[in-house]
């Protein structure tokens, strides 16, 4: 793919990934075939900030974990009242990283 296209994608979608993943992504995207660009753009990326807000408001019910795709952990959080409130609190700090990780995994599926 052209460098300008890749840079534009990374500029718009960059905040959805960990900063240390950007370099790796750029390399992979440059080597990617042009025909896969549409497929890449159709990958739904979750906004870490939104997930943080959801985690603060509905973390006790596990809604953040359900949204990010960790259904099992979501059920666990829901049944245990957010892990007695402690797990819900810890997740305020973990959920943004987890969202970026999931986004990276989703994009990797197109790259592979």
């Amino acid at each position: 793919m052209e460098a300008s296209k890749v840079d534009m994608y990374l500029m718009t979608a960059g905040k959805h990934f960990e900063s240390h993943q950007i370099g790796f992504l750029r390399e992979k995207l440059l080597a990617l075939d042009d025909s896969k660009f549409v497929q890449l753009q159709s990958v739904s990326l979750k906004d870490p900030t939104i997930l943080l807000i959801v985690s603060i408001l509905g973390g006790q019910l596990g809604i953040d974990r359900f949204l990010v795709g960790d259904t099992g952990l979501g059920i666990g959080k829901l049944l245990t009242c957010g892990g007695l409130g402690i797990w819900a609190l810890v997740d305020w700090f973990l959920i943004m990283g987890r969202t970026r990780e999931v986004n990276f995994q989703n994009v990797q599926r197109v790259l592979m």
Partner: protein
Amino acid sequence: MTRQKLYSLVLVLSIAGYLWLIVNLFPDWLFLHESPEVCLIKIVTGFPCPSCGTTRAVLFFSQGEWMTSFLMNPFGMLIVFSLVVFPVWILIDLIRGTSGFLIFYNKTEIFFRQKMVAILAICLVLLNWIWNFTKGF
């Protein structure tokens, strides 16, 4: 979710669960006069969350009062099942080197991701929540 991550998480949660039960059975040990309030939703809004009453439900279940336990909060039964079965299952898996619990976990996730199942589960949780409101915790 990797096997090691899941197993350590569930084991830690189970130990925390048993510790929490001990705290609630013998609050005097921590110089508490009654069991502590930890539900963030209840502390902030004053209204119960869907799983409020689960601890009491588990305690009633352990005393053999199954009907009272169910009426207190049906989630209690699920928690009792998880607390009894999951740690044993994981320990057996660890000893044998198998991944039975991980497979069960992944299958449960796939099951609950089906649209109809998810909607039904959400409705049940909401109904339980409404029921909790009427109990006046």
